[in-house]
């Protein structure tokens, strides 16, 4: 059902657009929603790899972290113009993805997972050892980025809609990519690599391109994450965070970017809700996720399709 794949995200975007005006306008709610939307972007970019290209990466948080640390480095150098910082952060994350992907994509399956994990850990330890940027303690930004010289991003409502626009843009982009010629080759090589090769497609350059695109999007999400919290720490790059992202994608369903979108929102909101209920929320969250995998094979998206 193609229209449902579009209808659900549009409904979600509409709800997110209305949220600030129907009782979620306070600082805390908006911060939470921004966080959910930013992880939504990152999860959608990861879904291009996992669901689209069949590349299960356990190092996606590193790309997010590279984007966030690009903000830190530029902030330290007093460069805070979004029109400069964003392209630089996206470029650096894409470059990191290109260099690590060029190696990782030569492998597949478990080896791919281990190599992305290894690169992710390298990035994590590098961030931890950067004493001038706070090392383990992290780095507090002087402030949010300026947009064309104005302090617009400091405005909570503007920041909310900036995140929403980027989230919707990411969804549109990945949807389009997967339907394009490029995406068709990716999907073909995921489902049956021998078939793709037999008609003349060597999957490597397509997979690498997808990895770089996903890296660029994750880098942008990293910029927004840094600005949302006005703080960046190596914790952004941990493999647990990569695992969370992977979980969002699987929780939502692998059928398309709309799955990752729903998975990310559900993950962040449930996590928040549980952490208010009890201090030991992880004891509930873990088994809950396991149950989700057992009983919703096609994720939230699959559940809604059947319903």
């Amino acid at each position, binding site marked *: 059902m193609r229209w449902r794949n579009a209808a659900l995200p549009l409904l979600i975007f509409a709800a997110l657009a209305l949220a600030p005006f129907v009782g979620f306008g306070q600082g805390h709610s908006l911060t939470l929603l921004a966080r959910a939307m930013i992880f939504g972007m990152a999860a959608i970019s990861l879904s291009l790899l996992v669901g689209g290209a069949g590349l299960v990466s356990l190092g996606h948080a590193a790309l997010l972290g590279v984007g966030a640390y690009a903000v830190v480095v530029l902030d330290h150098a007093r460069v805070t113009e979004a029109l400069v910082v964003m392209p630089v952060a996206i470029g650096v994350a894409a470059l990191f993805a290109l260099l690590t992907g060029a190696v990782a994509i030569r492998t597949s399956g478990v080896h791919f997972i281990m190599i992305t994990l290894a690169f992710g850990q390298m990035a994590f330890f590098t961030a931890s050892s950067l004493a001038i940027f706070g090392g383990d303690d992290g780095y507090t930004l002087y402030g949010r980025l300026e947009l064309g010289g104005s302090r617009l991003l400091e405005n909570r409502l503007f920041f909310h809609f900036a995140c929403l626009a980027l989230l919707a843009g990411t969804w549109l982009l990945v949807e389009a990519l997967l339907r*394009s*010629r490029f995406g068709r*080759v990716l999907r073909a090589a995921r489902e049956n690599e*021998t078939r793709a090769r*037999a*008609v003349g497609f060597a999957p490597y350059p397509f997979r690498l391109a997808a990895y770089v695109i996903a890296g660029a999007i994750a880098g942008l999400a990293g910029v927004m994450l840094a600005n949302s919290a006005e703080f960046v720490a190596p914790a952004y790059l941990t493999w647990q965070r990569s695992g969370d992202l992977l979980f969002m994608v699987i929780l939502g369903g692998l059928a398309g970017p709309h799955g990752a979108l729903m998975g990310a929102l559900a993950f962040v909101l449930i996590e928040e809700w549980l952490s208010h209920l009890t201090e030991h929320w992880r004891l509930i969250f873990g088994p809950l996720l396991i149950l989700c995998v057992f009983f919703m094979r096609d994720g939230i998206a699959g559940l809604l399709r059947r319903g």
Partner: protein
Amino acid sequence: MAESLLELRSLRKSFGGLAVTRDVSLSLSTGEIHALIGPNGAGKTTLVHQVSGTLRPDSGQVRFEGEDVTRLGLAARARRGLARSFQITCIIPGFSALENVALAVQARAGSSFRFFRPAGREAALNGEAMEALREVGLHGRADLPAGALSHGEKRQLELAIALAMRPRALLLDEPLAGTGPEEAERLIRILSALKPRYGILLIEHDMPAVFALADRISVLAEGRVIASGIPAEIRADAAVRAAYLGEEEG
């Protein structure tokens, strides 16, 4: 002497101590069906893998249209016009029959690094794909998921994919495997209709089909070509009868 479309020169391949391909030389011309038969374990599939580029021979050469393609992989040989089908059906089950074929059209119709336009709506790709489906009689099933097709239809689909690549040579690995008598008959009709335009290297177990279709037959036993000639010669060859035909008919 003009070189054949496809030529194998003294191919050798061993796995560990086991020689699976022993000094195999074969040729294939356009407009010809050259059948390769032999008992199970004769090394047919290993040979096909070397011809298609899935396996690299230890020594010897694969020449296609006068060029040495021994070092090229499956994808590169496919792009040059050497298409293969598989013994075990190799399609993309989640794609529609049409999209399976459109993927093959796309492989030679311009760049596939196009990121925005929906490929499913490209009329040129779909038109050609539909034509290939019609050629194998599968156009009525174009929109079905390929995984939902019957076994015989999947064999037809695989043939349509190969045709959509507009190859010069077709390498068909047991195209009739597992098909019923009616489906087999249909495929045999399709193959003989295709013959004038391609060179076809046919690996097949179905002896009546082989003798009906082939212009030349080579017999592989224990990795070696033990006989090669027109069907009548092969039928009369004592060594072949001993190695293969006798036990098949018995």
